[in-house]
């Protein structure tokens, strides 16, 4: 991809809430129609769709084509592995536009966790379907739960390693071990991130936690979920949808004065380094090869110092901490000190998760971070970083994008 060949011309979203009245399908439509209206486009203009692959994204291309009345979709692609899709869907959309396979590509993510599929529960309909509901020994109270083998889940679930929060707790503990942190160091680092993001959410009318103050007493007093992670180290569970529209740069400039250009977008996969990888043969903390971040910046033609704001995927507070290191903003092993001493709040060298993130705005698989980056670059964010020109949006497993105005 060549920098500035394509742009994001429209963004749209629903309200975020614990239990919204619409189905995921309806929420997706609301967000997409909003994004198209924001871009000055009509549904009939859409000829491409890129999305997170099932089982994560519940709303399909045929559902959208039908409900939006898109005459013909000529490019559609799906990216697997949950959060790993974050940069990939944009990379695919941008590649389609530059290759001439599509001219107007919609990217979306819809979630209705209130209707089943809560990411924080393993015994309902999880994002992978009714996993673990298979019974052996009849349906009586003594029936056992049989975990079908899929991606090594049968080696983890029988021990009670079933949810992302538990897995990320293993990562966070490993971080403390490798870098010699005592519990209090880790608490202060994770709490600094959670409290900073809550403060951002308090200034964001879209944020689910906009009315909920949180100080150190609140943070420390919250119950432990999976040590060292407390309640407020974990993301929200909610309903909602986000969408954006990608076109070629020339079209984007005709549509609006402030298109947000795509400088680069990456996807990456190495052995056992899928987003929830745990059998990494090297150091568990290295979630993607350093070359991935180098590629992201090299293709964009910018350096770390050029990034004005970062939106890091934060299923837990540990991920922005580690992302500061793995994307090269802070040396390995120093982010825990950096977030407590320098911080990521307003006026810091690199404001992070200025919408409140998954911890305090809403959980949309990273897509709400993309929308926040676009608002920052347009100069219309609630917690505007003055003069923001270049933004990075990144997931912990290395799927990322650099955007610029």
């Amino acid at each position, binding site marked *: 991809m060549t920098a500035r060949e394509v742009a994001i011309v429209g963004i749209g979203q629903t309200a975020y809430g614990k239990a919204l009245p619409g189905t995921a399908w309806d929420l997706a439509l609301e967000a997409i129609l909003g994004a198209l209206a924001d871009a000055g486009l009509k549904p009939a203009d859409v000829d491409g769709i890129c999305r997170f692959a099932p089982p994560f994204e519940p709303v399909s291309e045929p559902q959208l084509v039908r409900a939006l009345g898109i005459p013909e979709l000529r490019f559609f692609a799906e990216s697997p592995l949950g959060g790993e899709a974050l940069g990939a869907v944009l990379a695919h959309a941008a590649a389609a536009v530059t290759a001439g396979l599509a001219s107007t590509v919609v990217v979306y993510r819809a979630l209705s966790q209130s209707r089943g599929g809560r990411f*924080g*529960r*393993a*015994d309902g309909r999880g994002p992978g379907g009714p996993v*673990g509901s*298979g019974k*052996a*020994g009849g349906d009586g*109270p*003594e*029936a*056992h*739960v*049989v*975990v*079908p*083998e899929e991606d*090594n889940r*049968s*080696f*983890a*679930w*029988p*021990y*009670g*390693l*079933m*949810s992302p*929060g*538990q897995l990320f*707790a*293993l*990562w966070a*503990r*490993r971080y403390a*071990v490798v870098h010699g942190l005592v519990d209090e160091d880790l608490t202060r680092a994770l709490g600094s991130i959670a409290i900073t993001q809550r403060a951002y959410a308090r200034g964001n009318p879209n944020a689910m936690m906009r009315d909920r103050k949180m100080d150190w007493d609140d943070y420390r007093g919250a*119950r*432990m*979920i*999976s*040590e*060292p*992670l407390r309640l407020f180290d974990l993301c929200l569970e909610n309903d909602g949808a986000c969408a954006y529209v990608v076109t070629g740069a020339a079209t984007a400039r005709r549509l609006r004065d402030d298109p947000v250009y795509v400088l680069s977008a990456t996807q990456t996969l190495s*052995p056992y380094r899928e987003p929830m990888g*745990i*059998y990494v*043969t090297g150091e*568990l903390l290295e979630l993607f090869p350093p070359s991935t971040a180098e590629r992201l910046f090299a293709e964009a033609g910018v350096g770390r110092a050029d990034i004005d704001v970062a939106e890091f995927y934060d299923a837990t507070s540990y991920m922005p901490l580690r992302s500061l290191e793995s994307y090269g903003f802070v040396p390995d092993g120093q982010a825990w000190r950096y977030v407590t001493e320098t911080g990521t709040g307003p006026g810091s060298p690199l404001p992070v998760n200025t919408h409140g993130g998954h911890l305090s705005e809403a959980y949309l698989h990273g897509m709400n971070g993309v929308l926040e980056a676009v608002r920052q670059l347009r100069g219309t964010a609630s917690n505007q970083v003055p003069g923001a020109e270049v933004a990075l949006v990144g997931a912990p497993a290395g799927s990322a994008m650099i955007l610029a105005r």
Partner: protein
Amino acid sequence: MAVVPGMTELTAPYWQAARENRLVVQECQSCRQLWHPPLPRCPHCHAAGPAWRQVCGDGTIYTYTVVRHPTHYAFADQVPYVLAIVELAEGPRLVTAITGAAPEEVRAGQPVRVVFREVADGVTLPYFALVRYQGDDHGTA
């Protein structure tokens, strides 16, 4: 109620060995590398037909978490429990749980040894227990 592993052609030998109180990992017949979880071929030299090799059962805690909030009803009466990644003496790492220790006793780096527990009829899981040396609560001689 227990949560038990579903098995495939590839993974069944691991669980069958556990039933016999043996901990096994795959070993390449050609380049002798070991790995876990199971793969159809050696990920290093791509030789087919890896063998199952019994390991000594000793290892160290690579990382761990004390789960205090159950995310599945099957574990509602088991919290708190200690999940761990254990690095075997032979190299590969396993997801497991630490048994026979209070959560506050568990530290990364501690030596552990496999113990087998039948969790359901015909289903045995390898767990790990702290290796305790006399006079040292943390087993770090």
